């Protein structure tokens, strides 16, 4: 099992994530990964509508959003979240076949995209990139996973 240096927010707290995917399996999978990066899952949603309410409730640092979901697709959810929270960091998670949707999501304000199946090392880099200056690698004292 790969280990990663733990990522924390500038204020030293864990990065808080909202994971959105209609597949429970995919959610758990991604959740396990970000937890290994030292993150904290503050919310999960199985569709776009829930994602919006969960965002409002938890105001996470980072949203990992599947692009194809029932009821409301990831693009629309991303758009609505960004509209009311312009600083929201949303990373779209999807497969190769949904390129147009990713492009649309990026145009609507998503910050990045990760291809399914999600590889932990890529997700790690993407999160690090999207968090930018607001996150840092924790000093190795607390590093254990």
């Amino acid at each position, binding site marked *: *099992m*790969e280990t990663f240096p733990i990522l924390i927010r500038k204020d030293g707290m864990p990065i808080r994530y909202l994971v959105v995917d*209609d*597949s*429970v*399996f*995919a959610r*758990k*999978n991604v959740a*396990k*990964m970000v937890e*290994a990066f030292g993150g904290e899952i503050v919310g999960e949603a*199985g*569709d776009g509508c*829930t994602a919006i309410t969960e965002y409002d409730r938890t105001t996470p640092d980072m949203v990992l959003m599947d692009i*194809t979901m*029932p*009821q*409301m*697709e990831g693009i*629309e959810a991303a758009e609505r979240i960004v509209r009311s929270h312009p600083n929201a960091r949303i990373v779209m998670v999807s*497969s*190769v*076949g*949904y*390129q*147009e949707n*990713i*492009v649309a999501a*990026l*145009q609507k304000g998503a*910050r*990045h*995209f*990760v*291809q*399914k*199946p*999600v590889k*932990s090392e*890529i997700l790690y*880099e*993407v999160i*690090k*990139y999207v968090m930018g200056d607001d996150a840092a690698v924790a000093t190795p004292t607390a590093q254990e996973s």
Partner: protein
Amino acid sequence: MNFFSDDHAAELRELFFESATELLQTLNEEGLELEKRPEDQEVLRQVRRTVHTLKGDSAACGYTELSELAHALEDVLRPDIAAVSKAALAEVVLIAADTFSSMLSAYRGSLQPPAGEELKEQIVSLTKKPANTVRYKLQARFVWSEYEQMVVADALGRGETVYNVAFSIEPQCPMRGAAMQLIRNVLQDCGKLLAVAPDQSTLSNDLDVVEAAIASDNSEEWIAKKCRIPSVVAEVLVQKAGQAQEPADDVLDIVRHVTTPQEDGTETVIRAEETLVESAAREVATPRAENANSQIANDTQPASFASMSETLLRVDAEKIDSVLNLVGELIIAKSMLHQAINEFEKRHPKDPLKMRFSDAMAFQARIMNDLQKSVMKIRMVPVEHLFRRFPRVVRDVAKSCGKEVNLVVTGQDTDLDKSILDMLAEPLAHLVRNAVDHGIESPAERINDGKPAQGTVTLDAYHQGNEIVIEVTDDGRGIDREKLIAKAVERGLIKHGDAVVLGEIETNNLIFHPGLSTAQEVTSISGRGVGMDVVKTVLEKLKGTVSIRTTAGKGTTFFLKVPLTLAIIKALLFRVGDRLYAVPLASVVEITRTTQGALHRVDQHEVMQLRNEVLALLHLHRLEKEQAETGKMFVVVISTGERKFGLVVDHLVGEEELVIKAMDDHLVATDLVSGASILGDGTVVLILNLSSVVAKLGKLQMVGATA
């Protein structure tokens, strides 16, 4: 790579298999829907979403063979292909569902999964022709325009710092278009985007270099850091643009790079492709518009399986069984207590404690009842789980024998014990296949007979007392009695003379005899003559019955009756000699009395007249080789399937709820007894297996049982 600890992996895998099975079922249903409406974009979207989820889940689980196949399939689930291929696409989806399913079972057993060659070929054959339409053409127009050059020069002239940024795109990044968009987003974050090549609308897969010019107040390092986008950009080059320079050389390189792969096409080909691109573009445009509508429509749909499943609890069936067993013991304990209290009441009729005992008893009985029901309910699943696989079965069989068949399913909400349901799957599938293959006539034949060309097979389930009845009905040609008898005589199953005295029910029951099929020829679907007796055997094992009602030219109905549960039955207890026996109350029609004088003999059968019916009688004490000497006797009228007969018994004991204790085969050397139970006073009661009793005692050679 295994990202999880072993514990976790196992748990996730279990979750994966569970949801994958559900997904495959959905895929089957959607495939059928797609076959009906190949042009429906919404259906196609649903199929695609299902395949997509399956792909994602299996890839995350490390099942690459499955995810790659799913990926290949997902790629062809496009409106343009659907429009060209029509029903062929649905066929591929259904084949895929089968292939995925066999792969899943291989994975589950940790075996090498099948390669799915057939599916691959099918997918390739789908893409062969339309492949031309998806190429994007004429990227030559992405030259930096004069205007863009002017904008750069203008910015420099205003004293702004202009950077030329070049990105080389990660070779593994398959979503070039998305990469392009992300790069644009990042560039805009860095500063003012002056020019970018290629232009934004590109979704080309040939693209691997992007160049841009931005005006920015940020430092070169900052921009370089920002532009090093993980998983998208492999290398970044940031250069401060000195003077208004001609980037023409670089641009030409890019243009050349982008266009080379297409240059081998001749002029005419390009023109033809242009029209194709146009029509493809139109098709791409429509689903976008429909997205908006469908999202509204989707709002009214129930939550998907995935979002519901978290409230479900997966429990090992064995655990529930052991609870059920304990409940069974409790019921025995209850009747012990009951008897003790009865005894007490007899001895101390004046004791005031009597009332308190009976109150407590009533209270306990009620709770016991509820407890038993709740535990039973845990094991119950709606019949729908069983029924939902049949649309596919009917479609496949109908297709392979050139018939048009519509499947109507009702009563799918009826609950049934899970273990019974599982055992019923095979016989029911057999009956449904038979109904389509043998029952329903060919369209031409049907029209000749004045029936609609499309045949109908109906599946129905409902409660009847303590039993569940599942009906399989077809409106086909019915069972040909004469043919059936002729065949039975030919195979030596019955004697020629016997055929005349056979009742309708007995004739129909011939069909369950091993090695008898009335189909003219053996097909791949049915007609090997090994099926119907299996149906009967399974039903007997379940303490159920199967019966037939058929009308020549109108159709056939099979009635499968099974008990609600296998664990506890309501039974009628009686004594023969000094033994205590029980029969399931559900099979008891009535109880009557008769005298030795009212009995007659017909054909070696002892019979009696019951109102205006003649009832064959069975003497249980003959089982024990004892002689009856009573003048008056009780007759318990029993029905198994559609047959009725009278069971002559010595004493009736009463009704009781019996907890069936399975007996291992080596304990009981007869199939006449299907189980045993213990009463409150410790007496052991034997539960009769009625169909074997009939076969053994009645000497009715061909009732079709295992005699």
